[in-house]
């Protein structure tokens, strides 16, 4: 087949029709999601406070220390290329523990899992066939996510990151 897009007026109409289906599908599939998105959330400040709280609590349970001060929060816009509503953000921050000996790393992973499981977090399974070097734990109550990354023996760097779910910066969706 030719990979080029149809150039004729009829072709474009057909393409538009298919894309209309795509757009409608996006909207229809996301009907529940759209409702969820439009609900009030905690604010960005509250999310950041909670992230720092989780980070400090997890860090206190681990046998490793951060090698530098945590950087500023990183914010990512959610649903940027989606049908909206737009403006929600996911905030993240983390620690870098540097190059950790294997035995300490293994204990860190065990302590991390153990502590967060006790706090109600659940392990997030990885996609079939993928072998990321991380352990993801999510709190099903509030959707906050912790990631311990660089957990394999071959890794020269171990990091911990905590992320918020997508939230409205001031807690309420736009009218």
């Amino acid at each position, binding site marked *: *087949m*030719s*990979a*080029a*897009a*149809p150039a004729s007026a009829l*072709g*474009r109409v*057909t*393409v*538009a*029709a*298919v*894309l*209309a*289906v*795509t*757009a409608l*599908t*996006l909207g229809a*599939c*996301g009907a529940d*999601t759209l409702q969820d998105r439009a609900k009030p959330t905690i604010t960005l400040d509250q999310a950041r406070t909670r992230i720092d709280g989780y980070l400090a609590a997890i860090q206190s349970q681990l046998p490793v220390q951060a090698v*530098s001060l945590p*950087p*500023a929060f*990183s*914010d*990512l*816009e*959610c*649903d*940027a*290329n*989606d049908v909206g509503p737009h403006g929600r953000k*996911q905030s*993240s921050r983390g620690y*870098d523990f540097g*190059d950790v000996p294997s035995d300490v790393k293994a204990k860190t992973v065990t302590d991390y899992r153990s502590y967060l499981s006790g706090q109600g977090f659940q392990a*997030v399974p*990885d*996609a079939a*066939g*993928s072998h*990321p*070097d*991380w352990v*993801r734990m*999510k709190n099903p109550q509030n959707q906050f*996510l912790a*990631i311990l*990354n*660089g957990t394999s023996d*071959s*890794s*020269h*760097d171990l*990091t911990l*990151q905590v*992320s918020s779910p997508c939230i409205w910066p001031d807690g309420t969706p736009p009218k």
Partner: protein
Amino acid sequence: MDIKTLQGADVIGITTAKNAFDALATAFGQHIENWQHEVVDRLNHSEWTGTAAGHANTRIQFLQNELQAAKQELALVSRALQDAYDGFAAAQSHLVNALDDAKTHKLTVAADGGITWEKDPNSPNFAGNDAATQAQQIQARITAALNEADHADQTINARLGHLATNASNGTGLDSATAKADQSAADALSQIPAAGTDPNSVKAWWNGLTDDQQQRMILNHPDQVGNLDGIPAVDRNQANLINLARGKQDIQRQLDGLGPAPAATLGSGRFIRPNPAYTEWQQKHDDLADKMGGINAIEARLNTKVDATHPPTFLLGFDTNGHGHAIVAVNNPDTANNVSTYVPGTGARLGSIGSDINRSDVMVASADNANRQAGDKSTTSSITWVGYDAPQSIIPEAADDTYAKNAEDKLVSFENGLHATHDGKIGNNTILAHSYGTTTVGYAMRDHGLPVDNAVLIASPGAGVETAKDLRIDPSHVYAAQSPADAIGWAAATDPGGVGDNIWDNVKTDFGFGDGDHHLMYGRQTTAPQFGATVLPTNPDAGHSDYWNADSPTLVSMGKIMAGKGS
């Protein structure tokens, strides 16, 4: 060059030399005029004819051409001396200002540039608690001034050396040579047109002294800021001016709109929309959208640098149409590895903030991959909204004209990255999302891109049937598409694609389907037959979710950008 040499340099002496040279050149010009009047004109009026007269006239004309060529060459020497004065005077001034500031802050600058200061708070010479920061900044200024002088020295030396060689071996008497030298000198003051080969642009830029470069930036920021082949630091400086001017202009237009007209006309059952309000609102929303993008760029440029917020460079900016911006996280000229991120439908100045966020998290992911491998390499990710992207799924994303129109711009930009990079780029990646993958695919298919890797995220088709059609090693073509991403519904509409999809559906119904599928702009990039390496995704990831914190796709992007596989 060292501090003592530049500080003590007699730059006025260059002007003195130039003036003396100009006096000689003027006298030479006068001799040519005299020779014209006294010899050539008299011979022409002598009515001397015949074979001997013909030979003499030919020889005289030849001599005349040589004298004119020599005069032109001498004028170019004078121009080079003036540029030398401007360049060295600017460098010296920058050095002296830095040394004066060092004194003001009670810092002692050694001959080798080392800076020391009194640390005892009880000493009258105590340099203050911020002395280390001040010393660092002043040392950087001293180094920059010395480099500026070195650069002026190199460029002027090359120009004078060329003219001196011409003078000594006689080529300067050739009118063609003089014309070429004149053109080269004139070209220095003319900015190459948009679309000029970036390597030529870089050569032109290098031929200017720092002082001349600064004048180009200050006098023509709109041209310099968007020209591929200009180094990132200089483009950034020009575009900061463009950004400030653009902001002023948008604010002026917003102010000029005045208050909103009434939304409706009439009353009761005769109420109807007010066309004036609709027009006002469209203009207002467009301007507000652009202002939002400008504010997002400013916010990111002014963000304090830390591990997850590297320095940013504004490589392109304008408010034309929906507005454009090119923003690099980390300097692409000095980073070991470079990646260009091309967003798709909806990409414009107003949406740049979320796309810069994505570059931030991709650089963080690449840094993570490097650190895990014990590699200290750095990575720059450039958000490239240097093209007019479709702004709606319907009808604009149904039109591949946007992709076609972007091809030359993207090719030029990628060539420019190589032209300005310090040495060879370790690992160069092009990474695109949605319609951006079509844009990238078309450019790769039709022109080829000088990249090591292509990463196609949530693609409606890249304009090709297989990875190898993208004209790079197909094992370095990567694709990701979550099963929950609605882009998979953008099915093919061309007869060939429709036929292939029907055939695949039939095969699937009979239990031997092989997953082949065609989308709007070609074969699905994650289909096995396409031949790309398929990246992991979260199974419930929507069209925007590939950069989320828990995305395995983001991990893979970072590894690819860092040259660590996928």
